C-alpha cells in the first residue's frame, strides 16, 4: 500500500464531506422552514467536522506540511477528489433532499465498514461519523418519503431530481485502482459488497416514497480522480475567496 494511495483515498472521503457540507451551508437562511434550516446547518456542521479530521490526517500522511486549511482552501478544483454527486447544485429543497439521501445512504454504509478498517485512526473517525450519519439519513429518508408520497407536485419534483442525479451514483460504487488498493490492504471495504447493501437500502426507501428507481446510465465524470462537473469550480471560488484574497488571515 502506498502513502500516495492512502492520501488520495482520505481526500475522497474528506472532500465529499467538505463539498456536501458547503452545499448545505448555502441553504442557511433560505430553507423552507426554520426547522429545516437548522437541520441542514447541523448536518453541514457534522460534515465539516468529519472533513476537518480527515483532511488533517491526509495532510500528515502526505508529509508536505499542508494542514486542513491549506488542503481545503488552497487546492484548485482539479485537485479535489469528492464524488461528483456531492458538488451538484442544491436546486429546490426536493433536489437537495434527493442528493442528500443518496449520499447519506452511501456514507452510512461506507463509514460502518470503515469503522473496522485496519487503519486505526481512520476507523476512529469513521466510528464517530457513523453515529452522526444515522441522524442525517433519518432526516433525508424521512423527507424523501414525505415528498415522494406527498402531493402530485412534490412527487414530480423529487422524481425529476432523482432521474437527473441517479447517473452520478455509479461513481460511488465503482472501484478504481485507489479503491482496490485500499480494499486489498483492509483499509477500505470492497465497493462490490457496498453496492449491494446501498442498493437494498436505497431501494426500500424509494419504494416507500413511491418513486421509481431510474435505469442505470453511463457517466462522464470522475470527481474522485479530479474530473469534475463545471459546478465545483464556481462553488470553490466562493468557498475559498477569503483565504485566497487575504492569505493567512485570521478572525
Amino acid at each position, binding site marked *: 500500500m502506498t502513502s500516495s494511495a492512502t492520501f488520495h483515498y482520505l481526500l475522497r472521503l474528506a472532500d465529499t464531506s467538505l463539498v456536501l457540507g458547503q452545499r448545505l451551508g448555502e441553504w442557511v437562511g433560505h430553507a423552507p422552514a426554520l*426547522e429545516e434550516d*437548522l437541520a441542514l446547518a447541523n448536518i453541514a*456542521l457534522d460534515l465539516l*467536522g468529519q472533513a476537518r479530521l480527515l483532511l488533517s490526517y491526509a495532510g500528515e500522511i502526505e508529509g508536505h506540511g499542508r494542514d486542513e486549511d491549506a488542503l481545503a482552501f488552497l487546492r484548485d478544483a482539479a485537485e479535489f477528489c469528492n464524488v461528483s454527486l456531492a458538488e451538484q447544485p442544491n436546486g429546490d429543497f426536493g433536489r437537495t433532499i434527493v442528493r442528500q439521501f443518496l449520499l447519506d445512504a452511501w456514507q452510512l454504509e461506507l463509514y460502518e465498514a470503515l469503522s473496522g478498517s485496519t487503519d486505526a485512526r481512520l476507523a476512529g473517525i469513521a*466510528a*464517530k461519523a457513523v*453515529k*452522526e450519519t444515522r*441522524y442525517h439519513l433519518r432526516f433525508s429518508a424521512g423527507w424523501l418519503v414525505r415528498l415522494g408520497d406527498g402531493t402530485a407536485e412534490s412527487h414530480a419534483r423529487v422524481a425529476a431530481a432523482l432521474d437527473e442525479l441517479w447517473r452520478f451514483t455509479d461513481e460511488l460504487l465503482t472501484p478504481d485502482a485507489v479503491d482496490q488498493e485500499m480494499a486489498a490492504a483492509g483499509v477500505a471495504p470492497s465497493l462490490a459488497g457496498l453496492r449491494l447493501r446501498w442498493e437494498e437500502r436505497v431501494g426500500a426507501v424509494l419504494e416507500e416514497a413511491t418513486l421509481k428507481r431510474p435505469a442505470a446510465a453511463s457517466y462522464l465524470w470522475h470527481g474522485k480522480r479530479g474530473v469534475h462537473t463545471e459546478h465545483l469550480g464556481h462553488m470553490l471560488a466562493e468557498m475559498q475567496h477569503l483565504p485566497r484574497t487575504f492569505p493567512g488571515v485570521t478572525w
Partner: protein
Amino acid sequence: MVSEQVWRVLRSVMDPEIPVLSVVDLGVVRYVRADGAGLHVGITPTYSGCPATEVIQRSIREALAREELEDVTVETVLSPPWTSEWLSEEGRRKLEAFGIAAPTARSAANVACPRCGSHEVQRVSEFGSTPCKAHYRCDDCIEPFDVFKCI
C-alpha cells in the same frame, strides 16, 4: 496528588453552550495521566464538527494555567466515540434543572417536558440549536424545549 487537583480544576470548566455542565459532567474527559513528560488530559469531542470542542480545550488549558499546572498536554481522543451515555448522573440532573431534557431511549414516549413533567410531547425536529440537542414541544404547557440527543 496532582491528578486529583487536575480533576478538581476540570470540574470547574464549563461547556460553553450548556454552561451548567462541566466537561467532567459531559463525559468528554477520557483520562488524566502523569508520566515523565508531565500531565496528559485526554478530551473527546461530542460531535465531529462541534465548535465547542476548541473552546473547551482552550478553557481547560487556561483553567489549569491559573492553578499553575503548566506542564499539561491536552490531547484529542477520537476512539471510542463519545456517547450521551457518558453524561454523569449529576450532569443529567443539572440539564433537567436548566430546562433541557436528559437523553433517553429514542422513542418520544420516554421524553418528559423539563418544565411541567408531562409526557404529552412532540418531536419538532431531530436537529436543534446545537449539534447535541433535538427540538421538542410540550402539548400540556405548550412550551418548546430542547432534548439532549441520544447518540
